[in-house]
Every structure is written in structure tokens, then in C-alpha cells.
């Protein structure tokens, strides 16, 4: 599992790699809050390299998306998680919460 933040002048990009699950949930929340409070107008979350996503990751990202909308931050998902991760989320009816039309 690794969570990395890439910063540019206008946006933050959080890169999710490996298994993003309860073990990394606290850290992910911190990164999301920090990015949303940074004053930058765009926040992008990239799934490239994510091999698994559990429900804690889904609800954190979903809550962050709502928080971004309130704060006027453009929030988007990018990249593609591993097929197994997407299949598992689809089984649980969760994949719709992690797809944004502009990202794919």
C-alpha cells in the first residue's frame, strides 16, 4: 500500500497504489482533508496501481467528493484500478461510487 500526493500550482493528485484498505484508511482521510483544505481548486485521485479497494476507501472517497463539491473544489477520479479490485467492488454494488465520467 502506498499513498502519494503530487502537488502542482493548481491541483493535488493523490496516487493510490497497492491495497487501499482499513490499514491505510486513517492516512487516506488525512491526505484528503489536507488536500481539500490546501486552497487548490482541483483534487484528483488516481487509481492506477491500486490492486484492491475496500469499503473504507470507497466511503472516504465518496465523502471527499461531497466535501469538494461544497468547497467548490473540482474533484475527479483518474486511472484504472486492477480488474479484480473493480470486480470485487461491482459485486458489492460499489463501483458506481468511484467512477467519474470525465476521468475515463
Amino acid at each position: 500500500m502506498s499513498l502519494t500526493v503530487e502537488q502542482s500550482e493548481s491541483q493535488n493528485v493523490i496516487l493510490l497504489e497497492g491495497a487501499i484498505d482499513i490499514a491505510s484508511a486513517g492516512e487516506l482521510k488525512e491526505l484528503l482533508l489536507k488536500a481539500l483544505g490546501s486552497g487548490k481548486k482541483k483534487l484528483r485521485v488516481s487509481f492506477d496501481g491500486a490492486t484492491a479497494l475496500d469499503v473504507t476507501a470507497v466511503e472516504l472517497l465518496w465523502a471527499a467528493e461531497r466535501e469538494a463539491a461544497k468547497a467548490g473544489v473540482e474533484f475527479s477520479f483518474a486511472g484504472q484500478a486492477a480488474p479484480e479490485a473493480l470486480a470485487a467492488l461491482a459485486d458489492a454494488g460499489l463501483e458506481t461510487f468511484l467512477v467519474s465520467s470525465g476521468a475515463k
Partner: protein
Amino acid sequence: MSERGGPLSNTVNAEIFKQSFREEAREILVDLESALLELNDNHGDHELVGRVFRGLHTIKGSGAMFGFEDLATFTHNLETAFDEVRNGRLQINSELIDLTLDALDQIRAMLEEGAVGAPQADPAACAEILAKVRHLTGKPEKRPEKEKSAVPNAGSPAGFETASGAAAGQVREWSIHFAPGPDFMLNGANPVLLLHELRQMGGLAVRASMAAVPPLGELDPERCYISWEMVLATAAEREAIRDVFIFVEDNCELTIEPASTPVENQASALLNSAQRPSIPASASNSAPASAADLTAKALDDKRIPRGGRRDYDSPDNASSLRVPAVKLDQFVNLVGELVTVQARLTELVAHHDDPEIASVAEEIERLTASLRENSMNIRMMPIRATFEKFRRLVHDLARDLGKNVELTIEGAETELDKTVIDQLSDPLMHLIRNSMDHGIEPPKMRGELGKPAIATIHLSARHSGASVLIGVADNGGGIDTEAVRNRAIERGLVAADAQLTEAETYALLFQPGFSTAKQVTDVSGRGVGMDVVRQRVDSLRGTIDVASKPGQGTSVTLRLPLTLAIIDGLLVNVGDAFFVLPLANILECIELTREDIERANGKHVANVRGELIPYIRLRQHFSIDTPRPAIEQIMVVETEGGRYGFVVDRVLGDCQTVIKNLGRFYRHVQVVSGATILGDGTVALILDPERLAQDAVRAVSHGPRGRVSASAIAAAIKQSLRERNAARPRAS
């Protein structure tokens, strides 16, 4: 760019969950063995079949969840067999029971994989077991959670796919509401895997609800707020669906109802055909609008009442907790130290005339006593699990030895300290093996003797004062005292003309390497087992009592202390050294004057009402360099080797003390079984009278071993306690 976190916490968490699963699975395996053995005696008991099925199902489900893939796959095939039995498609028979028992051994080995000294699972044996199970069930090998189709099959009833194993029955639709509880994720459970398992049972339409997810700032990142509404089309019964949730049922809201209303049928059709849309790039405050959500709204509007809904606030949800034994030990240690500090407080208060402080000190004393009693109770657990696992041993040995033996159990609810229970398995195993091999006669001989064809081994437990009595009794041939005596003479353990009492003869059985067996078998006969029994019981500060009647059987009773953490003792001193002697060993206390010493001509023997009792000077034994008082005290103690006296300066009174380990430097000092801290902070050494007497006798015949200094041990213990206290974080 910054990288944070790493794989370590992930790995540590995974290992914690795996460990938790192992502990749970070990308990389930014990219960499974017990159920299978009962089933062996009663093939028609449906409740037992259900118990076996549920046990296998839990091991499979939890195993898959925690990464024990091989174990899950292996167990899945056994579960299938018992599902067939449950549904009346397969008859239970001894072959299936024996195969399943063998399979449990393999599962146990898979569980402990990688542990030092643990048996390894045998892939060839596993394959053979599965082949035989498949032969019995007539079903091909099944792998869990691998063959499901993600897309519902439009050709099946109501547009759902049907589970491969469920096609035979009537397919029905079930409406399922599932909401994980607050600790669900922290306990290592994963809702996604449960839903995955549900899909195996048939066509499943799922709608996840984010309604309970709080704003990001208030969100507990380790909690699952998502809940699910589902419609499952399956031929499986409600109980089978509930079984998917069997190991999380106490930590979730779960309702399973027949989806019979038109709205729900419409909902399932809608869900089935739903094309999941993407959420807009510019996210809104509302949840994504999808056909699934429309369906969910219809479901919410028309929801049938949730019968059996779980209330997280109700006390029965947390009726028990699984706590690692090491945490419990730390807790008891801390309580022990509190007891010590409280004793110091009481002593200090006695020197100050302040009624207010005295009143507070009394209150603390009362609370501390209550806390100590409660903490000791936490460690107490019933001996049932230890007893039950011997059913399997008796079953297997009876089969191997060609004997008919029934194990009966009495007093399984008797509670004793976990530490004692943990150390009981070995001695009980050796006693049972011994009874099975040497005690119980072969069936033919039993028939000739007119004894019942089925022999009995009776395991029992009961409280007796501050001790617990554990009994292993058989109705076999009894101990041949003449053979024991002859063997002892052969080995030079007793003189040829020695007059031995029954107790002395039986005590010979526990000598290292002693065996009367003419033949060494796989089961016993090497003379190792009974020696292990004696050593283990000694280390538990227990005693062994043997009774035997020729032709009628043998009974071995182990008397063990209820707890190893606290001891009732008598506090004595020699110079500036303090000792505690266990009250259980003490017979009486007599004075030793200089005249007495002169009368004995300098020999270390006291005349107690005509009986000559040898005594040991603790001053000499522990190298204490202080002058002797004019009148000393002899503590007369009873040991297995007879009565001995321990000479001390003064007897200070009785005490109930919390035992502390000596630490690694003094672990080899066997005459001292532990230490305790007195009210003023002084260390007192707890003596082991048996070992002390043996050591003294040995010193007479072989010369003294290197003496240990009581003050050196006490100083080392004090230093260790100071370091431990300094290392402990203090509340600011």
C-alpha cells in the same frame, strides 16, 4: 512529492486478524471433533449434522476472508458433503465421519502452517481425503467463490442466475438487508467478501446505500457506514443464506425475508437490468442517481418490517470478548503490583494518626481486594474444551488398539486458572494413553472375565477447597503391584527385601523411564509419559493420588491449585531475608533451642513427639551471614519424600501473596518458585518445599551444589522491578 505509510501496518493488521481467526478456528475444530464423535454414535441426529455443517462453513468463510485459500477450498468440499447430508441426499456413515476427522487434522496443520514444531499439512493425504469424499457424494471438486458469473442469467427464473448447488430446489427471491455494525471492519470482517459469497448462491441484485456516511471530517475511517439492500434468487433456504453471515451475525443488522411483494419483484427486475451510470465529473451533494437508487427508493418506501433486527445498544451484543492471554497476564501483574502498593499504604497509615487518611486507605484496601478477586476470576475458565478434545484421542486409540472404549466426562464446567488448564493437556494425554494401552483389557479378555464389552475411561473435575481435583479413571485390569515391585527391584530403585506401602509402590510408576510394559508400542511403554505427568503436576504445585483395584480398574487424581497467581503462605524471616512457605505444605511450627541442638549432638534432626524429623537451615542454604537467635523456629512441612523441618529465625504471620516470576537469571533456582513484594517494598522469596527437601537430601549424598544467596536474588528482583516501573509510561 512525499510518500507516506508503508506495507508494515498493513502486514501487522493482517497478521492480527489471521491470529484471531486461528484462535477461533481452533475452538471450532475442537467442537467439530466432539460433534463428529457424537454423530458417530447417533447417525440420525440432524442437530449434530447442522452443527458440523456450520462449523465447516465458518472455517471456510473466515478462512477465505483471512487469506487461508487452500484451507477454504479444502473445507469447502467437506462442507458440500455435509450440506448433502443436511438435505437428505447423503446418508451419514462411519466412513464419512472418519474421513472428516482426518480432514480436521489437515485443516489444523494448514492453520498452524509455518509455526515452529507444528505438523505440516500433507497435500497427498488431502487429495486422498477429497477423492474419497467426492466418491461418497458423487460430486466433482468444488472451489469456493471462483465460478460465479458477474452477470445475472436472463434465462433463469426472475432473470437471475441460479447457484449450481441450488438448482434442484424451487428458486425463490429473498429480500436481504445487511448493515455492518461499528466494529465490523476492526474485527477483520469484510462485507464485500460476504456479498461475493452470497452471489454463489444464486442471482443477486445489490444496492449499496451511502445514506449513513457522515461528512469527511466526522468520518471514522475504520468503520463501515455503508449498508446493503439485496434481492437474492436462490433455491437455498433462509438458514443457508443466514449461514453466510454466521460469523458476523452479532456485529451487524441482518434481515432475510421472502421478497413476495410485487414492488420487490419489480425492484429485482429493475436491478437486474440496471446499467450502472457514471457519476458526473462535477460531483453534487446527492448520491449518484441510478436505476439502482430508484429501485432502492421503492424498496425503502415499501420495506417490510425488519423482524429480528439487532440493536447495538442491547447488552447481549457484547456478552463476551476475546482478549489475548498476554494482555490478561499484564492486567493481573498490574493488579498484583497494586496489591503490593496498597499493602505499603496500609503499613504507612498505621504509623500516622490521621483518621481521614486511614479511612481512605481502608476504602482502597477494600477496592483492591475486590479488584484482585475479580481479576483472578477473569482468568478462570471451564475445563470443557480440554476434556472434549480427548474424545478424539480415545476414538483414535480405540481404533488403533482394537479396543472398545467409551470416554465419559463429568464436571466439564469446573473452572480453573487458564495457566493451569494450558498445562493440563500433556499430563491428561499421557494418563489416558496409559489407561488405553495398559489398563483396558482387549475385548476378548474382557469377555472371558465377564466384564462389559465396552470399557470406560472417566474424566472428571471438581472443586475441593482452594484446589481442583482432576480424575482419570478406567475400569480396566488395575495396576499389577507385584510387576511394579519386581521391575523396581530389577532397576535397583528399591531393595529386594523392601517393604513398600501401596502408595510407595504406585509412586514408582512416576519415576523417569519406569515401565512394566513388556513391549514398547506406538502408544506407550517407554516409561516417559508418567514421568512427564509428575513433572508437570509438580510445576503446577499439585499432587498425584493413585488408587487401583486388581481387575476393577485404576483411578488417578490430580490435586491442583485453582490459580497460580496467588498463594496462601506463612511469612518467615532469617536475618534480613524474608521467605514465604506455602501454607498447604506446613504441618506445624516448633521451637529449636540451643539445648535441643546439643541433645542431638549437632545432627540436624529434631525430636517431635518421638518422631525424628531432619531439618534444613535456611540460613545455611541461602548463605545468610547473620548471627542465630537463641531460640529458632522449625517449620515442619509435608513433602512427597516425607516430613522435613525448615529452620527460620521468626514466624511473622500468614499472608496471601501475588506471585512474581524470578526472571531469567534465577529461573534455574528451583528451590524458589517465585517472589513477592511485601508492604514495605521488601522482596520475599516463595520457597518450594518439595524441591528444597530434595536439594538438601541430594546435598547430603552428593555434596552441595553452588549455593544461591537469598540477598542476591532479592536484590536482582528489586532492581528488575525498579527498571520495569521506570519503563512504564506514566499518565501526565
